[in-house]
């Protein structure tokens, strides 16, 4: 799973968000490191919906503009949980390996 995908799923985990909301949430989650392009965001949302990981939550019109909110599907939550577990395992392995490094203060 690529980083933008991971961050989009993470952003949608807590609550449904519309496009601009996802961009803001991803920026906050990554401490400003990842600023999603609009084209990247919608391409990712489309792909995630095709894979059944996200779905449309609801739509609303604000000042005559359409806002479509997306939420994480059950499948998406499972995929995100699996990815979190994988990252946790990798992080733990990396820590162990670092501790084995000779000359490193313990």
């Amino acid at each position, binding site marked *: 799973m690529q980083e933008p995908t991971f961050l989009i799923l993470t952003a949608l985990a807590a609550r449904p968000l*519309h*496009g*601009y909301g996802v*961009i803001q949430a991803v920026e906050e989650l990554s401490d400003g490191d990842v600023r999603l*392009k*609009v*084209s*990247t*965001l*919608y*391409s990712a949302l*489309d*792909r995630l919906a*095709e*894979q059944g990981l996200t779905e449309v939550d609801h739509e609303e019109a*604000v000042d005559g*503009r*359409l*806002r*479509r909110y997306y939420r994480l599907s059950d499948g998406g939550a499972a995929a995100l949980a699996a990815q979190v577990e994988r990252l946790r395992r990798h992080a733990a392995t990396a820590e162990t390996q670092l501790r084995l490094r000779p000359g490193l203060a313990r």
Partner: protein
Amino acid sequence: MTGLERRYRRLLLAYPGSYRRRHGDEITTTLLELAEAGGGRPPRRQAWQLLAGGLRQRFRLPARRPLAWLGAVLAAVTLAAFGAAAGSWLASATQAGLPGDDSNLALVTLVAGRDGERAVTRSPSPWAGRDAFATARAGADWTAEPARQRLQALGWHTEPGTVTTIRPLPDDSPLRDALGPVSLPTTTYRFLAERDGLTIQVFGSVREGSADVSVDVWPTATPLRWPLVIAGLLAGALAGWLVAAALAYRLRAAGPARRRAGTALFALGLVVLAAPAEAFFSNLARMWRDHGRMGANFGPEYTVHSALTPGNFYTSGPPWLVLALTVAGASVLVAAIALTLARRAAGQAQVAVAG
């Protein structure tokens, strides 16, 4: 609609229509919200990003649809062959036309050096470009040099050519039984000449008491043919992929019956076009193999599109097989596209009625 919104909507035209209908409004909202928050990217950079995103979307295929991938690859390969054929045809259309029968007969009379029995034939080839072949009976004292000089006097640039003499085998030769009797010594002359975008091959066969000469005329190979064939190949592959991608998305959104019918028709079209595509590719391979060796292989150059010329490209089947399969396959593909688009129009009509 503000100027900014209009600008965004114009940029979104880079996206496929179905994608624009699905996401166009919300993307515009997001872009406007970003701009209002002061977080919009510099306009030019954002424009490029939207254009690139739109193009990428046009190439995308629905996720988890292995058949869509297979269809897109096969459509790209098939249409690449047709694109190469179109490029090859375009290149040949820029070449000089073949002279008429009267001109060919006049030319072979000039080469023969006298009036006499003459004939002209044209046998279009499914492998190579057009040519015209004229033969004439000449005097027994015919040689290449005077013919070459007569052609040069009319502005033809001639090449040195070859002279080969075949002598009868001695009576005691062990090869006589294998090769059969060669009763008369024969000398053959061959040379090329060029003028006004036409190349001719002069061939003379002189035996005791008689000589036969022939002139084969064909358009000189144009340096445009490779660029045009390669451009056609790439454009065809691109078109095949884009059409398959657009169909895949539309068929995915269609009802199951339409989806099955559209997929079956598209697959059938590709199957029918497989033989013509194979014929074009094998002519392309001939063209490539022969590339730069025209001097060694006298005759019109190989052309991709000539596979459509009626002939025995495939030894089994009627002479017009490749042409007929092309027309049939293209019709089926057009029907598959029409069926997919008709579904969309009907869907829109229903929405309009419901609205």
